[in-house]
């Protein structure tokens, strides 16, 4: 069982990394890109037989408290 957490900068926070990547993509000739946001991806391996609902709750807590900073980032958690 794996938990996958995607962390992205909040809309209100200026994302110079995303803007720079967007500029490079445009320069390379890729068309139709309106925005690029660069975030983080965290993969967590869970012990076999882990209770999915409990893991969801615990990792939501960890993502809110530690893995992301809610002042500047949003996160998405999936367990599969």
């Amino acid at each position, binding site marked *: 069982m794996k938990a996958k957490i995607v962390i992205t900068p909040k809309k*209100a926070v*200026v994302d*110079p990394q995303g803007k720079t990547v967007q500029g490079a993509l445009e320069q390379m000739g890729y068309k139709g890109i309106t925005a690029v946001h660069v975030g983080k991806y965290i993969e967590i391996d869970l012990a076999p037989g882990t209770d999915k609902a409990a893991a969801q709750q615990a990792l939501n807590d960890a993502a809110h408290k530690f*893995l992301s900073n809610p*002042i*500047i980032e949003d996160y998405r958690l999936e367990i599969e």
Partner: protein
Amino acid sequence: MNFAVLQFPASNCDQDAIHAIRDVLGHSARYVWHKENSLGDADAVIVPGGFSYGDYLRCGAIARFSPVMQAVKQFADSGGLVIGICNGFQVLTEAGLLPGALVRNRDLQFHCEHIFLKTAMHNSPFTNKIPAGKILKLPIAHGEGCYFANEETLAKLKANNQILWQYCDANGNLTDTANPNGSLQNIAGICNERRNVAGLMPHPERASEEILGSDDGRWILESMIASSQNKPVTKAA
């Protein structure tokens, strides 16, 4: 006065802080390792600059959960003076001891240079000795020093006069070109509502002697010393 200077793995301004306090200002200072649970008999805490825990995950995010930070939180809650410099500022925001966050510089570059600072608020333990109108020249050395807070937090900072220092030009004008990292409102340093916890990206401890290009940092450290001597200070647990 006794300063506690925290040491995390990859702190690198801890020795500068100790040197400024002991050798330049003649007060006592000692290192406190991140695994310690107590600050001893400290009158004030310096959370120094560096790259604690390799800046992994986010700057300051891991240091914030180290045992010593629990002691710092208690010390701050009981009114003790705490200053976070550079990475120390990042640690204090991550710990929730100061509002807002520090994100990547707007030009994505690491800035290592001297900047000018205007003191926005003189009535604090960190600024009370700074002469009115004095423009401070201090070094910065950071890649993630762009201060961000949502509109509500910013409004609160302003209403409570919690903005202590802002980036300015040599004449004290708060211009966009004088802002090295894109910080909102040119914010370089703030304090908490109670005024006993402050953080700033520039390095006062690296600017305590003329031979280093500026000794303006002394105004900040001497403000802390003066305010500690003027009133009874809460001792650390």
